[in-house]
């Protein structure tokens, strides 16, 4: 059974929409159903590897209705099929369920998305910044963050030898 029929059977006809471009197949689901959909795809449709988690900020995108998109790229290692599960988020509810309990590989990917976009993965065991320093306050991959930063580099605290 292919994944579309399976999801239709499990979650109902209107619970997701599909789209595609080139050979990419995408499904879009609501954030509250995301975990169940991914779990179903992993356990019953054979998508056993999580290839990637990423996010896109659609603030300046033409004709965009939602602010953020979170994309889970799945891979079936037996058949080689790929599937992209997408969820749209809007401020102030920037939280999606963590999939760490399904794939341990999601650990650092979710931390990176949290670090760069400020999207909170609820249920992640250790959600803290990964690439940027702890005391950083902004989420720099958002489109409203300037390319050259907000002066963090120039105002970085310098620790002298005497203070350390």
């Amino acid at each position: 059974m292919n994944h579309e029929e399976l999801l239709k059977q499990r979650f109902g006809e209107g619970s997701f929409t599909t789209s595609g471009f080139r050979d990419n197949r995408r499904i879009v689901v609501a954030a509250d159903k995301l975990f169940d959909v991914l779990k179903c795809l992993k356990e019953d449709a054979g998508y056993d590897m999580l290839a990637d988690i990423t996010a896109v900020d659609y603030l300046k995108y033409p004709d965009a209705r939602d602010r953020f998109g979170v994309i889970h790229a799945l891979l079936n290692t037996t058949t080689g099929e790929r599937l992209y599960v997408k969820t749209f988020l809007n401020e102030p509810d920037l939280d999606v369920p963590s999939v760490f309990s399904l794939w341990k590989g999601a650990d650092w990917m979710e931390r990176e998305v949290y670090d760069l976009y400020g999207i909170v993965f609820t249920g992640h065991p250790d959600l803290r910044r990964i690439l940027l320093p702890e005391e950083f306050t902004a989420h720099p991959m958002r489109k409203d963050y300037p390319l050259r930063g907000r002066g963090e580099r120039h105002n970085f605290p310098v620790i002298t030898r005497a203070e350390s």
Partner: protein
Amino acid sequence: MPLELLQAGTADQEYLWTLNFGPQHPATHTTLRLVLTLDGEKIVKAVPDIGYLHSGFEKLGEDLDFNQYVTIVDRMNYISPIANEIAWHHAVEKLMGIELTPRCRYLRTILAELARISDHLLCVGAAALDLGAFTAFLYGFYQRELLYDIYETAAGQRFHPSSTRVGGLLFDVNDVFVKKVRDFVKNFPKTHADIVRLLNRNRIFIERTQGIGVLSKEEAINLSCTGPIARASGVVRDLRKDEPYLAYKDFEFKVICARAGDCLARYLVRMDEMLQSLGIIHQAIENLPAGPVNVDVEGKDVLPDQQSIYRSIESLIQHFELHMPNRQWQPPVDEVYAATESPNGELGFYVVSDGSGVAYRARTRPPSFIHFAIFPYLIVGHQISDVVAVLGSLNIIAAELDR
């Protein structure tokens, strides 16, 4: 890093102590840091701390156009830069729906496989160096110099060739390139055999790698491992076979796999992959198709070469159009993920386009980042001297790790 992670044990585990490994340490090779919790010499917990080289590559990808960004992706995995370039333009060309010319596909395949050999030589050499076998490292680096010479002949730059362009390559290659590649194909097996003789039956090397850092097949899939690391654990997956891109369909080669999943298996997989790559290069260079290297200028997506810019008005206009920020390419307003089998594993780009010549979002799926995340799982329970063995077998490139 939060303070509680730096404190080794609780009150009843006072005997545990913390060791800070890196960010400046000769055996990390690049800038990465590990906070190890030790029970004697045994590792109880390892917490990697990364981000020292974070320089916002993905943010820059939203500012530079499709051709300019190639200079940035070059600097991600600087051990095999051309593999990154090919992956980037593979994604961009998939977005725009550009079909490459046969000559370009063959040339990119040759360059990608040379990059694979270069990457594996460094990984194997550095892993051997950390375990005390200096000679293998030197043998490997001599061959890497020859590879740099080949890149220089092909693109005019040794270290960061920045050679791919949308729809083709910066320069077509000449006879010197073909001769150098043929010489390399002829002479490399001798060095390879030397390294094999130095290491494969070397008792110290084997005892320090066999059974160390074992990754099972299930774990490898669950932890999103790809490339030689997954194949050493028995995951039979290679994008060159499973999702053939460039000219890989035309060549005969084997996917090298192992079952053991330890550091030795990862070393052996890399060693054998080099020979397979050499076979691909040999088949490609002997059957190199003639014809143009770039897609036809009429397609409006590719930069015309320098000579024709001076000689024909169409090329001059095309050159102007692609360099003006308000004109440039007009890709479809959509998003696409495309991946290639880079030496380290699946290197993919998720490109979101808003219809302009600059990517709206250029996400990299960096294999080093995903492979370093598995390090704490591999090292726990081993001795402190095994840290360098496991790190060496994972081939972590910090510039790609932090981007």
